[in-house]
């Protein structure tokens, strides 16, 4: 159990900066997921916590102790690697017990703990095999056992599930979560998969291009994305976004000639500004002809639990999730209603969320009770 403090951490490779001042704080026992597209610096950040990358500037403290200059072995972290990184010339038992062997633990004690750990991950029958003779899921378990046996203060996961097939990934996800509940060590999990991120995280960190975009509980981030990047990165299909101008007289935004009603108070607050309006596909509703937004369907995706219709509105791709029994097919024109209370507004220049109520206004009914984050955009 240990907390992790990351203060103004930067990383550059030569002259190329990859992390631009990261400030994060993870509580003891928390399961934190760092989510971002490839190249956003999430793995680099994780490897800096582990001690596998030098810290260019700033400091990282684990359990109150600054670890910048410490070797990986002195930091009390265990790591599960993306491609498992099992020692191919050692048996499963050898792999799991290697850390203890290095630490000079006596053989009998070592074997006892290997057996114990193997049991936790269900590998007790495979101890004498070599990694080459194991399936992907079993290798993943060996990698986890190797981390567990050290009883680390901090677990680091570097996209550990990305090499598994879809079904196994779901199972392993659940196992990792269960394991966390059992061991309750602080865990940092890096992934580019938003489903993994949403399901595993106590707290989610969304990164993009070496910056932290948003930190918060998964649902808060889903409901109140702090920027257009987060809005489009979290949720599948992605949030629909349009750059438009508010018409304050009619309290509408205009899309392809159709007027979408918005909250008059919001319209008043945003008058004259160019904004990006967002709505999640699952919040769009089919409505009767002549009402709302007309859309000609390009194609329909079947998901089983429902269908997603894809169309083009105001020159932008637009998706709407509808019920599985909705009578829609490619070429049809449907009418969509976009509920005003489900609309998100972002600053067109910065891409930051515009939060309501705005400071200095008296729109009393604050929507949602979700906690705000340090990165929330505020209108000055």
């Amino acid at each position, binding site marked *: 159990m240990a907390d992790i403090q990351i203060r103004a951490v930067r990383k550059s490779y030569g002259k190329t900066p990859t992390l631009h001042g990261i400030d994060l704080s993870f509580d003891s026992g928390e399961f934190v997921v760092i989510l971002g597209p490839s190249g956003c610096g999430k793995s680099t950040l994780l490897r800096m916590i*582990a*001690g*596998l990358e030098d810290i260019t500037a700033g400091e990282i403290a684990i359990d109150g102790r600054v670890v910048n200059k410490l*070797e*990986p*072995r002195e930091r009390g*972290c*265990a*790591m599960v*690697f*993306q*491609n498992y*990184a*099992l*020692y*191919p*010339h050692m048996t499963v038992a050898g792999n799991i017990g*290697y*850390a203890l062997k*290095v*630490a000079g633990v006596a053989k009998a004690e070592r074997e006892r703990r290997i057996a114990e750990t193997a049991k936790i991950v269900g590998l007790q029958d495979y101890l004498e095999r070599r990694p*080459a003779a194991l399936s992907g899921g079993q290798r993943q378990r060996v990698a986890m056992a*190797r981390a567990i046996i*050290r009883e680390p203060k901090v677990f680091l996961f570097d996209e550990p599930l990305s090499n598994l097939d879809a079904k196994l990934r779901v199972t392993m996800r659940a196992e990792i979560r269960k394991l966390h509940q059992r061991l309750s060590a602080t865990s940092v999990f890096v992934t580019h998969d938003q489903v993994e991120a949403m399901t595993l995280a106590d707290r989610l960190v969304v990164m993009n291009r070496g910056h932290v975009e948003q930190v918060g509980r998964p649902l808060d981030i889903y409901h109140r994305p702090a920027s257009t990047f987060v809005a489009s990165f979290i949720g599948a299909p992605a949030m629909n976004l349009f750059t438009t101008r508010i018409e304050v007289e009619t309290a509408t935004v205009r899309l392809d000639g159709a007027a979408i009603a918005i909250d008059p108070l919001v319209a008043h607050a945003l008058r004259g500004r160019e904004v990006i309006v967002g709505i999640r596909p699952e919040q769009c509703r089919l409505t009767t002809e002549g009402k709302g937004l007309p859309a000609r369907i390009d194609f329909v995706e079947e998901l089983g639990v429902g269908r997603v219709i894809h169309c083009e509105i105001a020159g932008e791709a637009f998706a709407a999730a509808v019920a599985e029994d909705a009578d829609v097919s490619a070429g049809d024109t449907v009418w969509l209603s976009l509920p005003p209370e489900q609309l998100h507004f972002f600053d067109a220049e910065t891409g930051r969320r515009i939060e309501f109520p705005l400071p200095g206004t008296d729109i009393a009914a604050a929507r949602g009770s979700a906690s705000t984050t340090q990165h929330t955009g505020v209108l000055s």
Partner: protein
Amino acid sequence: MEKRAVFKSWWLPVLFALPQLVLILLFFYWPVAAVVNWAFTLEPPFGGAAEFVGFANFKEALSDPFYWNSVVVSLIFATVGPFFCIFIGLTLALAVDRQLPGSGFFRFFYILPFAIAGPAAGMAFRFILSPERGLAASINALSPDLWNPAKYGSHALALVIIIFIWKWSGYTFIFLLAGLQSVPRALGEAAAMDGAGPFRRAIDVQVPLLAPTLFFLLVTMMTEGFVGADTFGIVHSVTGGGPNHGTEVMVYRIVDEAFQGLNYSGASAQSIILIGLIMVFTFIQFRFIEKRVHYK
């Protein structure tokens, strides 16, 4: 997918293969046939056709104490030399593989000696390690003849082996560095997370995964030590087999016997014994060591 060209006539494919066939016949099978022929025959002292003498040439070689001396010298040369070549190459490769500042510079200079011809290196070392000047002179100043390869066979043998090692460590270094670079970096990182320092990581993770490369180098370097052009070249240019046969490796003795002593038959018999010896060594290596090598 199998690619197969079908020729309508029999002579066209033969024509295509002809240059290679001629080269192999001229420079490999013909000499081998000649050596085998000479090994079992003897030219009469006053001329005439060679006579078949059975194993007489072999018996003569094997009953010569100087022949057995050359076998011992060769065995020492071909085990000590390759051992240190591989050990030094491995140490250097492990160091360069860590990619510390300046490793590119060192990589270049570690390989460089291999580009120098063995006899040339031998001539250079004759001066560098000659007993009466430079470094060796100051050693000998402590006590006379602490280092005198011109006088002691053991010193001379050490000298030629040192030159061999100096040159061939660059060769093993290239292979071992390439081998190390194919060991996934994540394995070293995993070992680092498991608490192993650089030395422990090298012993526990990197070296075992280099086993195929190490085995390959063991076989090729021992063969090189027995029959390599440098083995002859270094001995020839540095000591000429002496003092008192102290550095007379088998290849040197064969060349000396054939072209100085003009005893082609004896030299041919010794060549065949040498080939047999290398075959035995290679067999032992494959039979007993290769089993312990993990290919993936």
